[in-house]
């Protein structure tokens, strides 16, 4: 490869490190870099830290899980979005295009409606996302068409609309004082409730899905070609498509189940990463993972600190994502003409 990707990876890594440091140190209870280093070093080596107990608690119990969750979810959504943009040959696609988010949303609001515990709600959301995408895939495969990709995307839009109606119905029936605020909060996305016990159910699916996507990154360039061309190059496109969709759905559903619906990350970050390391998926996938972790850490730090109350993540990502999307569209217009 002629153009070196090293500067791009350096920028992405810098964003991730900056995101990590800011997320640990900034907030209502500021922590100095020295204290952070002290506590993390002590934790890593098993020594007793010398920093005050309150600082330790803020770093390890309050911010630690949240930082890890933000980094993981940001990386997961960015990798899934990158894979989907390649698979669907469209740079304006996000990881929930096949209904992962709307399925998870219906699962979660149902869990809240039936007054289930937090783990049951997360399990419902996770299952909802997987079932929705499986249904979209099954319906899309039944329709015999020349362009299976287009059918899949359109099926995703239609099924997503139906699931959205389901979410609307559950909200309409929900208790407006207890359940409705919880549903709204969840639908807007937040990491404020992230705890150590959340990390394992998040980490497992994200690790598996991301590992599959990263392992397949060498084939993603050819998978972004028209179907027949990719097959003529020797790729079993049907099986590969299922693997990529399944892996991306796994990480998206796990993320949504933990943090609610956080839109736009999977759309915006792949583009930023592409501008850093170019469109070659072999570099783009790892670069998007690194950058996505940093991006969501920065957004989550803003969400915690921008106002007296926490701003839902979905609101912030949308406020940043919408102008970005319009800018992208304007750029495509220039290319078309």
């Amino acid at each position, binding site marked *: *490869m*002629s*153009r070196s990707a090293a500067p791009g990876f350096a920028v992405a890594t810098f964003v991730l490190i900056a995101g990590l440091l800011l997320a640990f140190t900034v907030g209502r209870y500021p922590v100095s870099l020295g204290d952070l280093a002290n506590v993390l070093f002590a934790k890593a080596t098993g020594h007793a830290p010398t920093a005050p107990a309150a600082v330790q608690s803020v770093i390890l119990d309050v911010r630690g899980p949240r930082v890890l969750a933000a980094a993981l979810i940001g990386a997961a959504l960015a990798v899934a979005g990158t894979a989907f943009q*390649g698979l669907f*040959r*469209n*740079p304006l696609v996000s990881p929930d295009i096949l209904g992962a988010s709307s399925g998870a949303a219906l699962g979660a609001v149902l869990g809240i409606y039936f007054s289930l515990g937090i783990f049951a709600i997360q399990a419902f959301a996770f299952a909802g996302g997987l079932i929705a995408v499986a249904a979209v895939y099954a319906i899309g495969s039944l329709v*015999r068409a*020349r362009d299976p990709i287009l059918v899949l995307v359109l099926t995703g839009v239609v099924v997503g609309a139906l699931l959205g109606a389901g979410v609307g119905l559950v909200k309409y029936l929900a208790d407006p004082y207890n359940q409705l605020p919880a549903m709204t909060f969840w639908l807007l996305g937040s990491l404020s409730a992230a705890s150590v016990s959340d990390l394992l159910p998040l980490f497992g699916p994200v690790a598996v899905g991301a590992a599959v996507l990263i*392992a*397949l990154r*060498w*084939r993603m*360039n*050819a998978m*972004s*070609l*028209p179907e*027949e*061309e990719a*097959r*003529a*190059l*020797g*790729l*079993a496109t049907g099986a*590969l498509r299922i693997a990529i969709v399944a892996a991306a759905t796994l990480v998206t559903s796990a993320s949504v189940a933990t943090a609610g619906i956080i839109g736009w990350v999977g759309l915006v970050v792949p583009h930023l990463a592409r501008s850093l390391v*170019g*469109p*070659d998926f*072999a570099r783009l996938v790892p670069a998007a993972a690194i950058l996505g972790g940093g991006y969501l850490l920065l957004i989550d730090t803003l969400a915690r600190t921008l106002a007296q109350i926490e701003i839902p993540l979905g609101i912030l990502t949308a406020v940043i994502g919408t102008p970005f999307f319009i800018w992208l569209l304007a750029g495509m217009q220039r290319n078309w003409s």
Partner: protein
Amino acid sequence: MKLEGRDLTIGYSDHVVGRGLDVALETGEVLALLGPNGGGKTTLLKTLLGLIKAKAGDIQLGGKSLGAYSIRERARIIAYVPQVHIGTFAFTVEAVVLMGRSAHGNLFSAPSARDRAVTQAVLERFGIARLASRPYTQISGGERQLVLLARALAQEPQFIVLDEPTASLDFGNQGKLMREIRALAQSGHGVLLTTHDPNHALRAADRAYLLREGARIAEGPVGEVLERAQLEALYGAPVERLTDPQTGAAAFLPG
């Protein structure tokens, strides 16, 4: 090696495009598929590539049924050069040609040193090595066609199948492409191409296969098959034949 379709019925799930088609291609020769739009050229081409299943009949590749090859094995024997398109992503020329090596590594492997060497060699063969790091989306149509040809050659195939390779090229690049096609046959490849221009078949092909409304109306050496009456029957339009008095080379004018 031989790629041969016998008594093929071709088409899509909802309609039949052609029936009773026999077609054969040996390594080292160029076969041109000619015929009006909608006559089944592209369908026949994709059927021989194994991209569309034949509705009836049998396709043999090297004495074995085409269906018995895996997609990967097939891609190491037959390569496909689609009509030039501008991709969604601005991959570099080198990355595009490297995609031709997909069937050589395993599913998870990075390009090997040999993959890169083959890529470099085919880029040099077509004189486009200087474009290696340029985005595929920002080169000319003629260069793009050569890149797709280089990608096909990077598959190290026995057969190369091209869908209207001259369609979007200017006059000079059409000539260059036909020379490259002849050179491919000389280096032992079997080449199958579709074209709208009988002159291109005369220039580049050994044999021509005339396809009208899904039926073969003639097949044979270009000098015998590409005759005025034959072309008028094929296209349903008047055709004039010109001959260069010095070289004896023939050309056709429509209308």
